């Protein structure tokens, strides 16, 4: 599958690593729900690092939509809120 890390780029990830990414993603969600800034920061950073380490970056001349999109490694809770709020849907 193809995963985009916002602000970083697209990566091709195999099934095994996809499952690992999903596990970290659940912690991202838990920290988000708990409004735990430190845990959120640690989890998004870990998620991005995992995808970058285990995935293969997509070449520049390849144009495909991603199967999944994850926040950038330095996304703050507030930015995530803004992005996921209804106003976040209006393209900038």
């Amino acid at each position, binding site marked *: 599958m193809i995963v985009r890390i916002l*602000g970083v780029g697209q990566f091709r990830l195999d099934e095994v690593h996809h499952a690992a990414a999903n596990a970290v993603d659940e912690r991202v969600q838990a920290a*988000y729900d708990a409004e735990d800034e430190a845990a959120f920061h640690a989890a998004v950073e870990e998620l991005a690092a995992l995808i970058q380490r285990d995935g293969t970056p997509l070449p*520049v*001349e390849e*144009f495909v*939509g991603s199967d999944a*999109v994850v*926040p950038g490694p330095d996304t703050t809770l507030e930015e*995530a809120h803004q992005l996921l709020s209804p106003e976040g849907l209006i393209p900038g």
Partner: protein
Amino acid sequence: MGLMQRFTTIVKAKASKALDKAEDPRETLDYSYEKQLEMLQKVRRGVADVATSKKRLELQSTKLEQSVTKLDGQARTAIGQGREDLARVALERKKGIQLQLQSLDQQREQLQGEQDKLVAAEQKLTAKVEAFRSQKETIKAQYTAAEAQVKIGEAVTGVSEEMADVGLAVERAQNKTETMRARAGAIDELIDTGALTDITDGRDSIDRELEQLTVSSGVDDELAALKRELGPGSPPQGEIGTGEAAKEKE
């Protein structure tokens, strides 16, 4: 289910909004290419905006650093004059300004980070746009209308997502610079009202008190010198005054 799904939905929605499908899929390619060029312009403006805001913070830092040096000098002068109270006021202001300086430094670093990210996004997008430009001509030339439709759909979806991503980076940098601008405005206001000791004005309350001290001690010295010169036994007529007043006293 994690946050990934929600981010995916949001970004896909943004990407599809950025894309206005034309009747002829070949036109969609050209339209998308135009949009990409617009986005590149937007990123470049973003980089320039961040650089401007950063420059402003740097100018403010320089001003505040000058204030620190000045207040330090004032504190020394005040101690030399035996005015610990004044020295304390100067040092308190200095501490306040040093705190402001620290916060300016942090803000400058943040802006630098945003600038670096936008520059990287610009480089990446430039490469993407260039690759898209050459592919769109190939697609137009080599494929039948039906085949082209599929190819174009993929390419445009991919590039729209890229643009949504870059658009978010620009938005984020804009939000950051706006916050910084508001803060920088507040500091300018503090400088303007003299609360942070405006050094361009050159004089503040500490200055004035120190000046008064210098003036009065200078007058005392001169007075003493005059007394010595004229001697203690001088007749009253020798005093400065109008003749009338002197006569009336006699």
